[in-house]
């Protein structure tokens, strides 16, 4: 029974949502709307659960002093600081428990939460993403090697797109007459993106959609039960 009730709920919910796509009238549309409201509420709780999970997982790692535990501690301290500042003085237009912190705002220029967001988190986050450029440069040096017909094709395409996506590419072929549009690197890049790329992307999207339909049916029909927490 403990196992069958969730399976019945999933089957009925799946069936109603599925039916409402084809019969957008009462009662299906109404039930669907209610389910959507529930989904938004549950999603809100999922964020709260995520935070609890963050505290539990990181707390255990710090307690057991696993390898690199000071980094987990730094993460926890950062989390706590943002939470405390947000709760005490709010963020942007929202006030916190102690009001809007006018005196602190006069000193920092912003509320403490916003100050940390704009001057610390934002830059650290952008820096982490920017580090990818270094890995890409290093990987391009080692990986884009002409070995076979396919790798040759990949490299030629990559070179055209890299040049076409830079101002240098525009300048490089800017002197070519406009009646030869495909010889302009930006145009050639757009052509590659719009036709060969789109064709491949569509194939991937359709395959993925079919895969989603298949796995959704497996869940609705109770064949796929891993979301229940394993097969025990």
């Amino acid at each position: 029974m403990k196992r069958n009730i969730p399976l019945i709920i999933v089957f009925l919910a799946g069936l109603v949502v599925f039916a409402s796509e084809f019969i957008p009238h009462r009662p299906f549309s109404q039930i669907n709307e209610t389910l959507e409201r529930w989904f938004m509420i549950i999603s809100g709780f999922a964020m709260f659960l995520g935070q609890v999970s963050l505290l539990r997982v990181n707390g255990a790692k710090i307690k057991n002093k696993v390898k690199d535990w000071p980094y987990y501690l730094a993460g926890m301290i950062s989390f706590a600081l943002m939470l405390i500042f947000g709760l005490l003085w709010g963020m942007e237009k929202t006030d916190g428990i102690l009001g809007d912190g006018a005196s602190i705002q006069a000193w920092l220029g912003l509320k403490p939460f916003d100050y940390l967001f704009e001057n610390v988190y934002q830059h650290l986050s952008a820096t982490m993403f920017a580090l990818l450029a270094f890995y890409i440069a290093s990987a391009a040096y080692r990986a884009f090697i002409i070995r076979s017909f396919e790798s040759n094709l990949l490299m030629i395409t990559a070179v055209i797109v890299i040049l076409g996506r830079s101002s240098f590419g525009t300048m490089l072929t800017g002197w070519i007459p406009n009646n030869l549009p495909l010889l302009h690197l930006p145009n050639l890049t757009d052509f590659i993106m719009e036709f060969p790329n789109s064709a491949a992307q569509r194939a991937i999207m359709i395959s993925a959609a079919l895969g989603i339909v298949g796995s959704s049916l497996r869940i609705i029909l109770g064949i796929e039960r891993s979301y229940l927490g394993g097969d025990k």
Partner: protein
Amino acid sequence: MSISPQTERRIIYLVLFLAVLLPLLFPIGWRTESSPHVRMAHKLVEQSPAGSVAIVSFDYDPASMTELQPMAVAMIDHAWSKGHKVIATALWPQGPQLADQAFRALSEKYPEKQYGVDYVNLGYKVGGMVTIQAMGRSLVEVYPTDTGGTALNQIPMLAKVNTLRDIAYISSLSSGDPGIKQWVMAAHDMYNVPVTGGTTAISAPGFIPYINSQNQLIGLLGGLKAAAEYEGLIGMENGSATAKMDSQSVAHLLILIFIAIGNYKVWRNKRIKRTQDLKEEI
């Protein structure tokens, strides 16, 4: 002389760092031509009548703001210059703060624009596509208040905006899921609202199939170059994307040089090996 892979990597990192830094300090001023997809997005905003209400959705976080924030600023600038009213929403938690920053960046250029009259920040809502579907039925149900806690019916510019159908166009600036795809699937496909947007250069190829004869997506800004192109189209001479394009172009060029060196190295090693093999055979 042989260089160890670690030293090689360090040299690559150092040269790339300089290639990014130097054009920022000493701009080259290379020009960019606008691409058809950028012109499509520009045309959508350009042709919407004055007084239209648009949604700019901030579906990204600070990690990708280098590419997407200039797009947000340029699109809001364009919308305001055409007399449109802008609603900022976010499907990502950090979006509302980035929306406020974008409005703040334009406050000097448009001192007459008032909060609640010309723009509003409705903040973040969890739920992705389901949230957009719900906005199609009732905006106030999803967003009872703005980020400051003001009730929606107290905000003058939203007096006639009840659902997504009252929106002239939506621009989703997205760096992942949820983002453009969800806006296309829910707002356009279900409620027929024109959707445009911008994304990181790396994600752009995945959205191009949506630019089709059904106009699921009207144009797309892919990466910093597209942001610079949009800035060029609206005559934003000192735009941040335009300023960064030289750095990106030099970095791209450098990566091509690295690819060429890598290939030369492999070819040379192969040749040496072949010569050694021949010598051994003899």
